C-alpha cells in the first residue's frame, strides 16, 4: 500500500473567544472517526483574551489500523511554506498569516472571512486608522493557491451561531480535508449543545466554499442618494453633483432652504476656480467639509437628530429588538456652559462665558442627564429644543461659525487662483473641525493654528513647500489629540511652538510632615 508522503497541515487563526478550539476539536473528532492519526495544538492562556491566537492541526490521511506499529511524527508549530490550509476568522488575521509566510502559491488554500474586527491601534486614531481591506484581499488572491473569501460573520449571524461553525463548513466545503461532509456533521452532533445552530452555520459555510464564489465579497455601505435641487443640476458640473446635492440637502435639513442656497453661493466661486483636476476634487472636498461645518452640532441639532422617527427605527434594528418588544432609549447627555451659551444671543453669551471662565466654573457646570426619549416627557424635552431651530441665526455660535467659515473659504479661493493643489490642502483642513466640547475646541484650535501660520502667514513663501507643510501639519494634528505633534511639525518650519495647553492642574501634593515642635 502506498502511504501518503506527509500529513495535511491546517493552521487556524482566530481571535480569543471565537471558538477556534471547538473547531479544532471538531476536526479531531471527524478524523478520529475515520481512524486517521490526528494531532492539534494551541496556545491558550491569558494571551488569548481578545487577542490573536492560532490553532494548528495535522491529519495523516491513512488509517491507523493499516499502519501497524508506525505512527507519523507530527509537529507542534506550523512551518512557513508548509501549510496546506490556512483558515482565518477575520481579514487582518489572514493578512498576518500571509505576513508570516503561511500562505504559499504552490500549496495553501486560504479560507478567510472578509469581515473586520478592528484592532485597538486602528480604532483609537482621531481620523481613519483602518487598514485597507482591499490590500489584504488582493494579496490573498495573489499569494494563495486558492482563496475562498467571504463574510463568515454575516453567515454566522444569519444562522444564529458562532463563526467557528461557518469556518468548519467552509473548510469541509473547500474539499481540502480527507473528510466527508457527513463525518464533519457527525462531529458537530457529538458535541451536543447548540449542535443544530452549528449545523446551520456549517451548511452555510460549506455552500459558500463549495459553490461559485459570491459575486460581492465586500458590500459597500448602501448610500442613499436623494433627489437634489434643480440649481445643482443646472449650474454645477456633473462630477460635483452628488456631493453638492447631499450638502445642500443637509443644510436645508439643518436650517432652511435659504441656508442651502447660502451653501451653494459659497461654493460657486470655488467651483468656478476648479480646473477639474481629479474629478473636481477641490470642489467636492470643500463641498463635503463645508456642509459638515455649516451643519455644526449644537443642542438644537442633537435634539432634532435624536427625536426623529428614522432614528428610533435605526436603534430598534441595531439593538435587535423584535417588533413586539417595547424599547426604551435613554440618552447620556451632559451639557455645560459652552452648550448653553452657544444657543444664547451674543450679547448674553459673551458676558456669561466670561463670567464662567473667570470663576473657573466653565468645566464644572456640566449637568449629567439621562433622558428617556421614548417617554413622552423626555421626548418633549428634546423636541422643545429642536423647535428652537428658526431662532438659530440669532445665536452666538451661529455668528462665530459663519465668520470662521468665510475666513476659510476666502483662503481657499485666494489659493485656488494661484495653485489648485494648495487650495485643496486648505480645503482638506476642514476635516479638523469636528466633535463636541473639548474635542471640538482642540480641533478648532489646531485648525486655527494651521490657518494662522501656514495658510495666512508667510513662514513658507513657496507654494509648493506650503502644500507639503499644510498636509504634514494636518496629519500631525489628526495623529495626536493633544496637538503636540502639530507643534512639533510646525517647529520644523521654524515656527515657535505654543506652550503646552495649561491643564487645570490640581497638584495633589502629599501633605508635608508637620514641623517638629522644639521642646
Amino acid at each position, binding site marked *: 500500500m502506498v502511504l501518503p508522503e506527509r500529513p495535511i497541515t491546517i493552521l487556524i487563526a482566530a481571535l480569543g473567544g471565537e471558538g477556534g478550539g471547538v473547531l479544532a476539536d471538531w476536526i479531531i473528532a471527524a478524523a478520529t472517526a475515520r481512524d486517521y492519526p490526528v494531532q492539534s495544538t494551541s496556545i*491558550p492562556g491569558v494571551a488569548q483574551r481578545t*487577542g490573536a491566537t492560532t490553532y494548528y492541526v495535522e491529519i495523516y490521511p491513512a488509517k491507523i489500523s493499516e499502519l501497524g506499529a508506525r505512527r507519523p511524527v507530527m509537529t507542534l508549530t506550523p512551518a512557513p511554506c508548509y501549510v496546506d490550509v490556512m483558515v482565518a476568522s477575520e481579514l487582518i488575521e489572514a493578512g498576518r498569516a500571509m505576513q508570516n509566510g503561511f500562505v504559499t502559491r504552490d500549496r495553501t488554500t486560504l479560507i478567510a472571512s472578509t469581515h473586520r474586527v*478592528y484592532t485597538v*491601534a486602528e480604532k483609537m486614531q482621531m481620523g481613519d486608522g483602518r487598514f485597507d481591506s482591499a490590500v489584504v484581499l488582493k494579496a490573498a488572491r495573489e499569494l494563495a493557491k486558492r482563496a475562498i473569501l467571504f463574510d463568515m460573520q454575516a453567515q454566522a449571524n444569519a444562522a444564529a451561531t458562532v463563526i467557528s461553525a461557518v469556518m468548519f463548513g467552509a473548510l469541509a466545503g473547500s474539499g481540502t480535508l480527507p473528510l466527508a461532509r457527513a463525518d464533519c456533521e457527525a462531529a458537530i452532533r457529538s458535541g451536543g449543545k447548540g449542535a443544530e445552530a452549528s449545523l446551520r452555520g456549517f451548511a452555510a459555510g460549506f455552500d459558500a466554499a463549495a459553490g461559485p464564489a459570491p459575486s460581492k465579497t465586500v458590500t459597500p455601505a448602501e448610500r442613499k442618494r436623494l433627489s437634489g435641487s434643480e440649481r445643482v443640476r443646472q449650474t454645477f458640473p456633473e462630477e460635483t453633483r452628488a*456631493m453638492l446635492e447631499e450638502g445642500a440637502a443637509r443644510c436645508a435639513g439643518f436650517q432652511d432652504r435659504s441656508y442651502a442656497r447660502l451653501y451653494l453661493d459659497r461654493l460657486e466661486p470655488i467651483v468656478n476656480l476648479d480646473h477639474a483636476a481629479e474629478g473636481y476634487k477641490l470642489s467636492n472636498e470643500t463641498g463635503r467639509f463645508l456642509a459638515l461645518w455649516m451643519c455644526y452640532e449644537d443642542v438644537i441639532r442633537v435634539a432634532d437628530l435624536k427625536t426623529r*422617527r428614522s432614528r428610533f427605527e435605526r436603534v430598534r434594528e441595531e439593538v435587535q*429588538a423584535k417588533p413586539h418588544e417595547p424599547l426604551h432609549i435613554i440618552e447620556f447627555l451632559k451639557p455645560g456652559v459652552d452648550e448653553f451659551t452657544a444657543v444664547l444671543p451674543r450679547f448674553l453669551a459673551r458676558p456669561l462665558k466670561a463670567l464662567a471662565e473667570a470663576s473657573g466654573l466653565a468645566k464644572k457646570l456640566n449637568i449629567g442627564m439621562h433622558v428617556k426619549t421614548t417617554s413622552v416627557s423626555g421626548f418633549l424635552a428634546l423636541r422643545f429644543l429642536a423647535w428652537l431651530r428658526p431662532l438659530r441665526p440669532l445665536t452666538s455660535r451661529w455668528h462665530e461659525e459663519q465668520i470662521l467659515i468665510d475666513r476659510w473659504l476666502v483662503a481657499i479661493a485666494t489659493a485656488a487662483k494661484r495653485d489648485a493643489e494648495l487650495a485643496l490642502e486648505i480645503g482638506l483642513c476642514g476635516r479638523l473641525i469636528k466633535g*463636541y466640547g473639548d474635542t471640538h475646541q482642540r480641533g478648532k484650535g489646531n485648525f486655527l493654528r494651521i490657518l494662522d501660520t501656514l495658510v495666512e502667514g508667510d513662514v513658507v513663501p513657496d507654494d509648493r513647500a506650503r502644500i507639503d507643510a499644510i498636509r504634514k501639519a494636518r496629519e500631525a494634528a489628526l495623529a495626536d489629540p493633544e496637538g503636540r505633534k502639530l507643534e512639533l511639525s510646525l517647529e520644523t518650519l521654524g515656527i515657535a511652538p505654543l506652550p503646552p495647553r495649561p491643564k487645570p492642574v490640581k497638584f495633589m501634593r502629599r501633605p508635608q510632615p508637620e514641623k517638629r515642635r522644639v521642646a
Partner: protein
Amino acid sequence: MERSFTKEVELLKLGAGQTFHGEGILAVTKALLQSGISYVGGYQGAPVSHVMDVLNDARDIMDELGIHVETNASEAGAAAMLGASINYPLRGAVAWKSTVGTNVASDALSNLASVGVRGGALVVIGEDYGEGASIIQERSHAFAMKSQIWLLDPRPNLPTIVRMVEKGFELSEASNTPVMLELRIRACHVHGAFEAKDNRAPQFSRRNAIENPEFDFARVSLPPATYAQEKHKVEVRWPAAVKFIRENRLNEVFEGPIAELGIVCQGGMYNVAVRTLQQLGLADTFGVSKIPIYVLNVTYPLIPEEVGAFCSGKVAVLVVEEGQPAYLEDALHAALRRADLQTKVHGKDFLPMAGEYTGEVVLTGVAKWLAAMAPHVENAGVDSEGIRSVLDELSVTKMRAVELLGGAVPARPPGFCIGCPERPVFSAMKLIERESGAFHISADIGCHTFSTLPPFNIGNTVLGYGLGLASNSGIAPMFSGRTVTIMGDGGFWHNGLTSGIANAVFNKSDGILVIMKNGYTSATGTQNIPSSRHQTEWKSGDMSIERALKGIGVEWIKPVYTYRVSEMAKTLREAMSSAYRGLKVIIADAECQLERQRRIRPQIAAALKAGKRVVRTRFGVDEDVCSGDHSCIRLSGCPSLTVKAASDPLKVDPVAHVNNDCVGCGLCGEVAHAAILCPSFFRAEIVQNPNVLDRFVARLRNTVIGWLRPAEGRS
C-alpha cells in the same frame, strides 16, 4: 472556573485496554492516577491550570482512591506540600507555571532537594515560553542544576509523556530526589491518544492513614545534617539517577545512515527537528531519519556515557536546545572534552541564542548547518542544493507578502474582555491624569496588566505576582505627590497581603493601593480564591479581603463599584489629596464579566424560555451624532466599542459603533458622562416577554410621540 471538565473527568476513569483521546495536560493527570499518588496540589497558571481544574471536578474519583487534592495558596505552598514525601513512602505531585512559579517555589524546592525524598515527588512545570507567553522569558533548567532536581523534557506525544510521568516517580524513588517534568505550552495542549492503564490506589491515603510519625534528623535541613545531604546528593543520589536513566533507556537514540553527523535535541524539540529534516528531504513522515538523533527526554542530569557513545565517530553534532544560556551545549562540550572526543559541537552558532524554536527557526538553523556540512550530506546522496532552495523559498514568500501588504498588518495584543470590570478603573485614572498630569503607577500581575497596553498605557513597573505594593515601597517616598499601586485579589491572597499590605502598614507607608476585586484569578482561567463569592463544598466560603485588611490595621478602606467611573475618579482624587497619612486602600469591586456571563447566561435563557419578563440592556452610538474623533475609544478600549464606515456620504472618518457583543456594562455611557465627551451614547432597554402593562404603556407613548413628531424632513 472558565471551563467545566465534566467530560474530561470521564477520561480519568479509563482502565487497561482503553484508549485515551485528549489533551497533553490531561494525559499527565491520568498518568498521575496510574502512578498511585497519595496527594496532589499546585497553583494555577497557563499552561497547567487544567491539572488543578480537572482534579477539582474529579472529586469522586479522588475520594474513591483516597487521594488528597489541595488548592495551594501559591507555588511556594505547593512545593512545601511535597515535604510529605520526605519521611513517608507517599507519592505526590504538584503543578505550576514556570519559570515564575518555580521562582516563587524555590525556597521550598531547595530544602526538599537537600533532604531528599523517600516517596516519589514530581513537579509538573508548564513552560510558558515563546508565542502566547504571558511571562518573562527564562529557562527552568537552571533550577534543576542548582538544586540537583532531575529534569524531564519528554518528546511531545502522549505515550512518551505518560511514560515519563510514570518513570519519573520511579526515578525519584530510585535516587531519593524530586523530579521536574517540563512541558512546553503547546505540549500541554497537544491533542493525541495513548493506551490507558488502570488507576492505582496509593499504599497510604486518606482511606488508609499513616499511624506513626517518623523522625530522622538526617532528613531535616539544618546543619550539620545539610553538609551530609550535599555529599549524599553528589555521591549517592546522582550516580543512582544516572544508573536508572541508562538502564531504563529514558533517553532515545534513532540511528541513521549519515553516521558522521548527529543531532542532539531536548525531547520537546524532537518533533520539530524531525519535521525540519522531512522538509529538507532527510527524513520520512514516520521519523526515520538519515541523520542519527539523540533525544534527551532527561535534560538534567546528562549521561556522559551515552553522550560519548553517540558522538564517537561523528565529525559534528548539532544541539537543538531551546532557550538560553545554552546549558546542554556547554555540558556536551565538557563531556566530550573529558572523554577526549574531537567531535565538533554546533548549536547556538547556527540556531538563535534566544527565543522560541518554531518550525521556521529550526528549519533555517538546521538547513544552514547542513549547508555547512554539505560534503557529508552529499556522500549520502542528498542534494545540498535542495536544502538551499528551501531556505530561498522561505525568504521569497515572506518578502512577497510584505510587498503586497505594503507594510505590517496591525498587531492584535490581548486586552480586557467585553464588559471587564477592571477597565473602568483605568478610564478613571486616565481622567485624573488629565487634571493632575501623569503619576507613577506600580502595576501587578493579572488581567489588569493589560492596562500597560494601548489605549491606556498605564502602569510604570511590573515586578511579580502580588508584588505591586512591595515594588512601590522604594518609589513612593521619592515622589512629592502620592503614587498608586494596583493589585489583583489573586495577587492579594498569593502573597500581597503579607509582602505588600502588612509591610506597608508596618513601615507606615503613605501609599494608595487599588485592589481589583473581581472574585477569581481571572487571568489563569477564573479559578476560585479565598474571597470568591461562590465556593464549592470543599472550600471555606467566608473569607473577606476587607476583614483581612482591617485585621492587619488598614484604616482607610473605600470600596467602589468599578463601573461608576466618576465615583472611582472622585475616590482616587480623595486618596491623593487626603490629609490622612497611612495606607489608603480602594477596593474596585465587581465580578469578572467572563465568569458573570457564564453564570447568568443560562439563567436568562431559562427565564426567557419560561416566558418571564427579562429586560436586556445594551449600549449604542447614534451614528449621525457621532463625529468620528474616537475619544470614547481612547478612554475605553472595549472590544465591542468599535468603528464602522459612516453611512453618511459626507463623513470621511469611520464612526464609533457598539456591536452586538455588548453586555450592557455601561462603561461607555459612564465615560461619555465623566469625560464630557459627546451626546452620541444611549442605553437601550429591550423588554423581552413584555407583560400587559409594558405593552399598554409602550403603545400609549408611541401614539403620543407620533402626534408630537413632525413629518420626517431631509437630513
